[in-house]
């Protein structure tokens, strides 16, 4: 079966990283500074998708409520900022911790179910968080919350400067991908994959499958929260829209599109989907139609997703 030669496949993420690092210069040279913001948005969603890929792709857990943790991170930093806590060093860890706490609570209950029931329970919890956010009239409710600017980092880093913020996002994304890759390669990661493949056998061997999944779920939630934190800063705005179930569905679509269980599936999926949206909407008002058709092509032409297309069968 065709695919990229293994050496090129291994080099691909590094090539993309090089392009990402050089992007601001390229964009400025081409006088297309707008695309720095687009790239930043892609990186943020790639982080969220990568975190979902950990539990969906490697853990086999189809969560339709991942947007909840993204939203908790976003609202966390937003509410803290509005209440006067603007330092990124305080607000960001707190928001990520809040997302992790939500993941712990939701995961503890949901992971006792299986299959389609797990999907529905995670969806239900995410909807609850959504409606609570809509009900928070003091923090904007349905209209959303305008933030008075970006978080303050100090050390000469000014996030309101587009390119600086872009490099902060890129650095955090790269660090998170590094962490995730190390995790997947570790004993924990292998055990997680084992549980996905055959849970009863793993239990019989003696692995604490519930605890394994819960830990993965919390890590994924924390990283999604980090993505939410960056998103709130990116827009200087947060609203319940980020918590809607269609956002969770979009994240799942990104992971499936990119390739479930492939290390960079989240990145490929998020980048492809968001780039397609950008490009298609330039040509036609009916870009949903074009996107839908393209997704159908992917379902039949690339059954293992884009990463699967690039990888030779012996994966």
């Amino acid at each position, binding site marked *: 079966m065709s695919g990229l030669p293994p050496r090129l496949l291994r080099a691909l993420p590094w090539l993309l990283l090089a392009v990402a690092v050089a992007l601001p210069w390229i964009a400025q040279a081409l006088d297309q500074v707008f695309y720095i913001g687009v790239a930043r948005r892609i990186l943020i969603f790639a982080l969220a998708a990568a975190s979902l890929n950990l539990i969906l792709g490697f853990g086999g857990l*189809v969560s339709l409520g991942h947007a909840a943790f993204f939203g908790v991170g976003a609202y966390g930093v937003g509410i803290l900022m509005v209440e006067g806590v603007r330092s990124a060093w305080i607000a960001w860890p707190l928001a990520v911790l809040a997302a992790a706490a939500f993941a712990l609570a939701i995961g503890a209950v949901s992971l006792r*179910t299986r299959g389609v*029931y797990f999907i529905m*329970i995670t969806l*239900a919890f995410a909807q609850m968080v959504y409606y*609570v956010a809509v009900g928070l009239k003091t923090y904007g409710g349905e209209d959303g919350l305008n933030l008075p600017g970006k978080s303050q980092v100090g050390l000469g880093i000014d996030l309101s400067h587009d390119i600086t913020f872009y490099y902060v996002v890129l650095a955090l994304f790269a660090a998170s991908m590094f962490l995730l890759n190390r995790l997947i390669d570790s004993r924990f990661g292998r055990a997680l994959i084992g549980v996905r493949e055959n849970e009863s056998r793993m239990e019989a061997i003696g692995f604490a499958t519930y605890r394994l999944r819960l830990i993965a779920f919390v890590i994924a939630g924390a990283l999604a929260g980090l993505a939410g934190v960056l998103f709130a800063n990116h827009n200087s705005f947060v609203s319940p829209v980020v918590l809607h179930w*269609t956002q969770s569905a979009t994240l799942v679509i990104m992971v499936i599109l990119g390739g479930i269980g492939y290390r960079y599936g989240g990145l490929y999926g998020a980048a492809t989907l968001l780039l397609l949206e950008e490009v298609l909407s330039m040509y036609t008002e009916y870009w949903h*139609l074009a996107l*839908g058709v393209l997704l*159908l092509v992917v379902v039949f032409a690339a059954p293992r997703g884009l990463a699967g297309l690039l990888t030779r069968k012996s994966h």
Partner: protein
Amino acid sequence: MSSILIAEQILNGLQFGLMLFLLAAGLTLVFGIMDLMNLAHGSLYMIGAYLMATLLAATGNFWLALPLAVLATALVGLVLEVALMRHLYARDHLAQVLATFAVILIADDLVKMIWGPAPLMLNAPPSLAGPVELLPGFYYPAYRLLIIGVGLAAAIGLYLLVTRTRAGMLVRAGASNREMAAIMGVRVQRLFMAVFVLGAALCAVAGALLGPVLAVEVGMGENILILALVVIVIGGIGSIRGAFVGALLVGLVDTAGRAFLPSLLNAVMPLNVAANLGPALAAIAIYLLMAIVLIAKPTGLFPARG
């Protein structure tokens, strides 16, 4: 709280629940028999509503437009099954999610292209526009009574179809154990096609009838899809009885919750807390219901898989 208000809300809940049942029945059969996660089910509901609006405008006759709209939507369902769905039965759930999500995108834009982005006007027939006096002093809209009537008739019809006919027996066999049914000689491909088209027809009835009550707009499918998913999880996948009970529960809890919870909370809590909490609690009431049911009966109230 007056008993008239309570009775009114119960009837509203019943009406909404019965329409939800029409959607849920199709969805649960498709999921139970074909093991197909069909997110595009809501799109068929939307298409039913839009076709009804157009046919009503074209013919001027509600009673003529309704069966025509159902037939037309069933045809759309047939095309969809042959062109796409039957190629998805063998795929895993996630591929089905991706494909049917793509169908939602395509359907939403097609509808926008054909009918425009603004919501459509769909009116109840003039003969049913007024209220009916059910009990002395208790008035209820005639059109909503029609919805309840049609919903109950459909429920009874489905029940008879599934329990008293040979086709229904095949449906139950397929829902209970698909592989065994195929081995026993059930013509699986025709059964699947028939089930999918039936589901589409039921969606159309719900969409056409609810059109005058809710808005006929792009995105109406996604809103009701979530509720239908909750219903079939509560009821048990593959079970029409479960879909019926689940739909009524969800319809009643959602309607009663939105009507009574805010005022109930106002009575026991300080006003500013209740103002925030009330609507939020009402909105999540059905999810709490689902969680409670799943804790007590993890595979739903009436699981079909034997």
